[in-house]
Structures are given as C-alpha cells and as structure tokens.
C-alpha cells in the first residue's frame, strides 16, 4: 500500500468515532498546552535574561565576598570567635583592607576595589523627598538606558537614576531629566544630615537585573562611606564585597583557576553574570516543576490513546480481517493503526501549541501595557520555532509509542478468525 493511502485511511478512521477521538485529542491538547506555555515562559524569561547578560559588559571581574564560617542564626554549629572577622549586615562576614592586599597578591589579579553600597536616605529635586538605594558604578557595566548615558567613573557629580523615579521627581519624560540637578541626602556617623547635589546624566531602563538602584561614581560612594564610618573604627575599612578585576584577555581556564584560588581562600567569587544567572536558575527550576504537570497530563493522554485504539481494533476486527484477506500485510495494518495514534498526538499537539501561542500573544500584549511596561524588550512568552517543533515531534513520537500495543494486536489478527468475528 502506498504511504499516502495509508495516511488517508488512518485520517478517515480518525473521524469515525468523533467523540471518542475528540476526547483523546483533548487530553493530548491539555498536556501540550501546559508544556508549551511553561516552555514559552522559560524561553521568554531566558531570552530576556540572556539579552541583558550579554549587555552587562563587565566580564573580567569577580564580585568577591568573605565566606569564612561564622555562627549565624541559621547555622547548626557554634564557631570559635575570630577577632579579625568583622560582621556586616545580616550577620555576614565583611571584607577589609587586609583582604584587599591579600587578594592583590594572587596571580592574574589586576585590580581590587571595594564595591560601595552607601546608605543614602533620600533623593529630591527640591520638592518631595523619596527613599532610594545607591551603589557605585562599575566601569564598563552596560546599563540599558532609556535616555542619556552611563556615568563617567571619574566624575564625582554625576548620577544615573531608574526610570521609575522620573514621574515622582516631577519630570514628564526620561529625556527631560537629563542635565537636571538631583540632591542626594545621607547622614554621617555623627547623625548630621549631608546633601550632595549631582547632575542626572542618564535614566536606566527598568530591568530585572538590578537597575533599580541609583548609580554614583566609586569615588563619591567611597566618600559617603567614609563620612558614615568616620570615628567608628570597628567598621571603618570594611566592605560587603570587593570587585576583583583580571586581564580582559585572560583565558577562561585561568579565570576559572583564579576563582578556585579565591574559593580556597574562603572567599566567594562570582562574575556579575553568575549573580544574575542565579535568577534564571530559579525561574528554570520553577518551570521544570510546572513541566512535570504537563508531562503527567501527556502520560495520562498516552494511556487514553492506547484505550481509544484498543477499542478501535475491537470494533474493526472484521474490517482488519477483510483487508488481510485481500492481501494487506501485517505491516500495512500496523501502519494504519500506528498512524492513527500518531495523528491523535499530532492534532492534539498542533492545537495545543497553536492555543498556547494565541494565549501567549494576548498575555504578551497585556503585559507590555501593564506589569512589564517598563521592561522594554521583555516578552513574557516566546515560542521559538525549534522548541515548538521539538514539542510537536516529541508528542507525536509518544503517541506513536502508545499506539504500538494496539497496532501490534491489530497486525497479528488472524484473518479467518477476524472474518468470523461479528
């Protein structure tokens, strides 16, 4: 029998018991829809994260924190006191100037600078005051700018702000803020209010990658920190983290070796990409969990296919007998039924993928005007052709495998007995 006739026969058999077939296709549809949606979210989030990661721009530095053991409220063990260790926020162990000189001596390290996260109280354009968080800008870090530019690290009176501050600070749009003055207020160690007036040079696009803080020049950040620790020797010269730079052209192998040395010296060492990548790992973990529901739904659907086809084989016993009497070989009969099974998978998967794409388009459009309004270029759901085709093929294969048992049963029918069957 010709393959085209085989397909045609299996398709017309498919619509013989419409309700039964529809319900089985519905089961496949539900599983496919779930998997396609979760993959769509995974693809959307990861595509966005990868795009942002590619934009980070700093790939020759580790963010280093102290990883010495210390007794925390969460730890199970009680650790001996070490007078050299300094305690920071959340009971973390701080890094100090002695750590800087120690790390500077490690091979391949070019430069070690403290990463300042000064505690500022407010920002204002001379009307209402707003709370804000700031950190020192790392030279070369590519921030996605809605307007303006990243600041010059040598310039102590520049600042960039997240786009969400535009409206509260009284600007009608991002470009209006460029060149305007912004006052930053903080208290020094003697609780005296200090204000710095800076120039807004850039407005950062909203991003999941931590563009929610203000960026100021490292020297300014250092100065604020000095003001805030002056006279308090217990925390002066300590930092939450260090930026350890290495040569831009250092081979990856050596960079990994450097990381291992840092780890061996009880530091954590993450690239900026690593820190951000954690987010995508969490997202992927959640999506994997959701995918399991889809896979369970598909396994149930697979048993539905087995059931549907076993019923079909029983109903069509005499028909199978006739075909075999008229010279159809076992392979033809197997083909007719397994193609029917594969078709159930194919149609269920096709409708499921199509529906998920339709839902994705609607959700993306809604999100773009609502909760993701400020995340330019972030499509919550993305359906790359490759991954949709992979889902389709996977489900067709699953359906085919589910169909093998009934198909083998059909192909082994003895024509004489089948023709006697009524």
């Amino acid at each position: 029998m010709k393959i085209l006739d085989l397909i045609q026969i299996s398709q017309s058999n498919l619509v013989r018991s419409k309700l039964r077939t529809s319900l089985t296709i519905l089961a496949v549809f539900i599983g496919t829809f779930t998997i396609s949606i979760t993959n769509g979210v995974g693809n959307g989030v990861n595509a966005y994260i990868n795009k942002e990661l590619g934009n980070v721009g700093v790939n020759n530095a580790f963010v280093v924190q102290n990883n010495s053991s210390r007794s925390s409220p969460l730890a199970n063990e009680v650790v001996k006191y070490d007078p050299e260790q300094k305690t920071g926020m959340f009971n973390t162990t701080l890094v100090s100037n002695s750590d800087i000189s120690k790390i500077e001596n490690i091979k391949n390290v070019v430069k070690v600078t403290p990463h300042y996260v000064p505690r500022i109280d407010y920002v204002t354009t001379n009307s209402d005051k707003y709370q804000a968080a700031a950190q020192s800008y790392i030279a070369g870090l590519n921030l996605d700018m809605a307007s303006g530019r990243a600041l010059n690290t040598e310039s102590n009176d520049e600042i960039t702000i997240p786009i969400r501050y535009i409206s509260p600070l009284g600007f009608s749009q991002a470009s209006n803020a460029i060149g305007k003055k912004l006052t930053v207020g903080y208290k020094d160690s003697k609780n005296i209010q200090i204000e710095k007036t800076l120039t807004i040079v850039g407005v950062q696009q909203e991003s999941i990658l931590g563009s929610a803080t203000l960026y100021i020049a490292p020297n300014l950040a250092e100065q604020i920190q000095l003001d805030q620790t002056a006279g308090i020797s217990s925390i002066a010269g300590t930092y939450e983290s260090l930026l350890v730079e290495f040569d831009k052209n250092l081979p990856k192998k050596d960079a990994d070796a450097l990381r291992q040395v840092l780890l061996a010296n009880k530091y954590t060492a993450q690239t900026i990409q690593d820190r951000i990548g954690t987010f995508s790992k969490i997202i992927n973990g959640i999506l994997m969990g959701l995918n399991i529901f889809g896979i369970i739904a598909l396994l149930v659907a697979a048993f539905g296919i087995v059931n549907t086809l076993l019923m079909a084989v029983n109903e069509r016993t005499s028909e199978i007998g006739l075909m075999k009497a008229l010279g159809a070989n076992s392979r033809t009969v197997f083909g007719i039924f397994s193609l029917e099974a594969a078709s159930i998978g194919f149609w269920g998967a096709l409708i499921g993928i199509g529906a998920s794409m339709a839902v994705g388009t609607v959700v993306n459009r809604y999100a773009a005007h609502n909760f993701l309004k400020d995340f330019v270029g972030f499509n919550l759901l993305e359906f790359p052709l490759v991954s949709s085709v992979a889902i389709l093929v996977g489900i067709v294969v699953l359906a085919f495998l589910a169909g093998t048992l009934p198909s083998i049963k059909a192909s082994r029918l003895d024509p004489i007995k089948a023709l006697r069957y009524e």
Partner: protein
Amino acid sequence: MSNILQTINVTKIYENGVDTPALSDISLTIKKGESVAIIGKSGSGKSTLMHILATLDRPTSGSLIVDNIDATKFSSKDLDNLRNQKFGFVFQQFFLNGRNTCLENVMLPLVIGGVSKKERQRKAKEILAAVGLSAQINQKANNLSGGQKQRLCLARALVTDPQIIFADEPTGNLDTENGKIVIELLFRLQKEKGITLIIVTHDPDLSKLCDRSILIKDGRIVGENS
C-alpha cells in the same frame, strides 16, 4: 486446459485438543476457468478447505499448488501478494465498509495493492458498470439493498482481474430473487472473463449451476459429480 489449483494430500489439524483432523488427505485438481462447488454440511470442513485453497490458512501437511507453484513454500508476504493480485473474495456477510462509498469499497483491493489513484478509479468505475451499480458510485454502501450489496462485493472481487474467485455462501444473506440475480451475474462475468470460480455452499440449486461439485464430509472428499 491447465490446472490452476491443486492440493496434494492436504491435512489440517487444529491444535485445540480435538483428535479428528478438520481435513484429511485431500487431493483435488481445479482447472483454469472451471466453476467448482464445495458442498457439505456445516462442520464438514468445507470452509477450512476453502481457506486453505485461498491461502488464508496453511495446511498441517500436504501441498497446495497454485499456477504450478508450490504455495505452501511461500512467505506470508508472497501469499499476501498472491491473494491481492490473483484471488477475489465474495463473502456471505459482505464485509463492506458501510460509511464508505461504493467506489471506495470497490477500490480497496487496488489501494492495498498500491495501484495509482487514476488507474484504480478507472478500473473500479468500469467494474461497477459491469455489475449495474453505475448510478450508485458515490452512495454510501450502507444505503444499498442486500442484492446491491452483494453485487458491490462481486465488483470488489473482480476489480483486480483475478484468476480465481472464492465465494463463501454468496447467496446466504439474500432472498431468492436477489440471490438469483447475483448468481446469474457471477456466472456471466466468470465465463466472460474466464475466471475460475470456487463456491462454498450448502445450497444444492447453486451447486448444480457449477461445472462440478465436490462433496465434503468429516474432512474428507466423499463424492464428486459433474
């Protein structure tokens, strides 16, 4: 005239604990173009004999010679091809696909045989005209009367231009009048096309129309008359 079917000492024993063979030591010869009735009571073994002659079943021992070739040595694939291309079948219960059209039902053996779409439509329409069903080509088989259904079965059996037609109680489900029409048609086409006809029946009137009859009882040939 040359032989088209020959059995040599064919015995069939079913492996279900029954000691008596379904067929024992059957040797017969059927010539090309002949019409032969296999008659006997139910349980006599006449259906088993037809199944073996039609290669739907294999004998336990003995040989079946089809067109001078020993078919018992054929692979099941060869047997499938043999049935598809050289044999036609007419059954008492019709075994039509009721939701398909007459044309589709008739084309089935050609579809199985891998004949091109154009060719099989041409052949099917031609044979449907020969059995007088030209007007019903696109009707669903379910909508036909009993007599029309059996004529449709004749068309399906004849569409491949077979050498042999096996008819198993072809009038069993028909009233006398329709039975007569179908049988007349069957014999007319058989003679026109020079086809060998093997009819299994317990109807003595039908067997009288054949060139000769073979009487089966308890799995043995007990008589033959021409």
